[in-house]
């Protein structure tokens, strides 16, 4: 257990470093954070002064930093410039949608990716493997926003099979049952999830393929064959099970990355998650909001890595502390 404590300690340090870096990156860039605010309604110098004071931008950098940190620790990331509401509240409001999308994408990527990756390993050197490999590389090379646009256009507009934007049907009657609502959300979920999954599946496949190739070469695979077990059983029961588990432990790592990658997809599909929020925050130059989201995602990355390590230790019967 001391090992776990050590890892947690490391994770905390990493998180702190990340947050500090994020803060300085943002402040280091030239440009006035409030410059854009004057676009919609011209602001008098006096009004700018007031705003500047409100956002603490008239303070020296170190003061800004300490107040930011102290706020961050309490979960307070200030007020959004664009929405005028507390950043934390905005984030919490949008988080579920992102988790839904991210979770679904992870599920698809993992289920499909591990199967395809293992298949590649089993058919190693054959045309199947190469074909799958090239396809996954092509998918990786595809910009997610472009794929989203194309799918939205084809499936949503030309063929009219699935909705192309948003998470809910605005025309749904307010007394619709939970089941109807759920189905509605699911229908809206399909396109963005497929888009994001397509672009990300390559990485999972790669890991699975290499883990499976490794497992197939282990002595116990040959020993299993020598006992007269069928080839599918040898491959999918014995080898796959061993190959699966380094990939499963990566789950913790993937979720935050998927959330990060969803910025474009959420924007294209108007999916009300953190990604779209971040994209809008960028256009609106809403620093507090952007910082809040960045800090959250960074923490998720660090947390995810920790979970992955812990999962590895817990799941491997060899490493399990008796």
């Amino acid at each position, binding site marked *: 257990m001391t090992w776990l404590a050590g890892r947690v300690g490391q994770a905390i*340090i*990493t*998180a*702190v*470093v*990340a947050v*500090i*870096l*994020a803060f300085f*990156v*943002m*402040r280091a*860039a*030239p*440009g*006035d*954070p409030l410059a*854009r605010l004057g676009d919609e309604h011209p602001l008098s110098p006096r009004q700018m002064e007031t705003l500047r004071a409100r956002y603490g931008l008239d303070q020296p950098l170190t003061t800004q930093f300490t107040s930011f940190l102290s706020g961050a620790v309490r979960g307070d990331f200030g007020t959004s410039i664009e929405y005028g509401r507390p950043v934390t509240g905005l984030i919490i409001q949008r988080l579920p949608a992102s988790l839904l999308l991210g979770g679904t994408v992870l599920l698809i990527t993992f289920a499909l990716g591990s199967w395809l990756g293992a298949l590649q390993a089993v058919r190693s050197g054959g045309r199947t493997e*190469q074909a799958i490999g*090239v396809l996954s*590389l*092509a998918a*990786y*090379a*595809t*910009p997610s*926003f*472009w*794929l989203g*646009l*194309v799918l*939205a*256009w084809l499936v949503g*507009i030309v063929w009219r099979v699935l909705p192309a934007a948003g998470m809910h049907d605005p025309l749904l009657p307010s007394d619709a049952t939970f089941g109807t609502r759920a189905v509605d959300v699911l229908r809206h979920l399909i396109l963005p999830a497929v888009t994001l999954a397509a672009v990300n599946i390559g990485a999972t496949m790669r890991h699975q393929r*290499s883990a499976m*190739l490794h497992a197939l070469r282990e002595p116990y695979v040959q020993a299993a064959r020598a006992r007269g077990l069928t080839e599918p059983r040898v491959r999918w029961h014995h080898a796959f099970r061993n190959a699966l588990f380094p990939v499963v432990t990566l789950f913790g790592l993937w979720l*935050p*990355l998927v959330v*990060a*990658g969803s*910025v*474009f997809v959420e*924007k294209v599909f108007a999916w009300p998650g953190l990604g779209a929020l*971040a*994209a809008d*925050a*960028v*256009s609106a*130059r*809403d*620093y507090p909001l*952007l910082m809040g*989201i*960045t800090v959250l*995602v*960074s*923490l998720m*990355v*660090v947390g995810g*890595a920790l979970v992955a390590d812990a999962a590895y230790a817990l799941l491997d019967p060899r490493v399990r502390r008796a």
Partner: protein
Amino acid sequence: MALGAIVLFGLLAPLALPDPSAQPDIISGALLAPSALHPFGTDQLSRDVLARVASGARVSLAVAAVAVALSMTLGALVGLIAGYVGGAVDAVLMRAVDGAMAVPRLFVLLLLVAAWEQMPLVALMVMIGATGWLGTSRLVRAEVLRLKETDFVRGAEALGARAGRVMFRHLLPNTMGPLLVAATLGVGDVILLEAGLSFLGMGVRPPTPSWGGMILDGKDVLTAAPWVSIFPGLAIIATVLAVNLFGDALRAATDPRET
């Protein structure tokens, strides 16, 4: 695999070369469907999409080249120092790298572009490059650690090589293999990143053509004229795929351990 890369490069090369019709504005008609005259159609400002895609190629590749060069240089530097000097320096550097890696590259770039009003192209290149060296530094450091114990390094040290400087002459060339592979694969990532930023309106700014920007433009006329968005996207796929296939082939050629 290598064959595929070569084929794709062959397809792309003519696009990337300086296009004689450097002026992408041909006033013949807006939103024309692809035809013999305009193989990729025209956009809402009557510009030939094919020509713009070609110009966009130059921009994207230029951004990628500069950014990757910067990333590789920074990464190699940090990796060499951390790996060779070791000790506290290594510990501090790697902790910093770990922390920095926790913040997704995209978000760092978002923060930067949000702060900078009118970011000039050069600044964009530098920004992208400055955010991409973390992984490379780890890579180089690992190589340096591996090579540190080899005979030829020990030999050079025994001959009294000047503190570290000459080491960079010895160690650095040997890390070139993995570095080159990382660089090639990095180009693909940068192209995708830059396209994404441009799509958000935050990367390469109009009127400079960029693939991401073109896709953004095409978004408004998607139902009427899908080709405006489709072709730049295909160009991205083809380029990144070619680059990645090439990088894979390169990796297979230089790393006998990989199966």
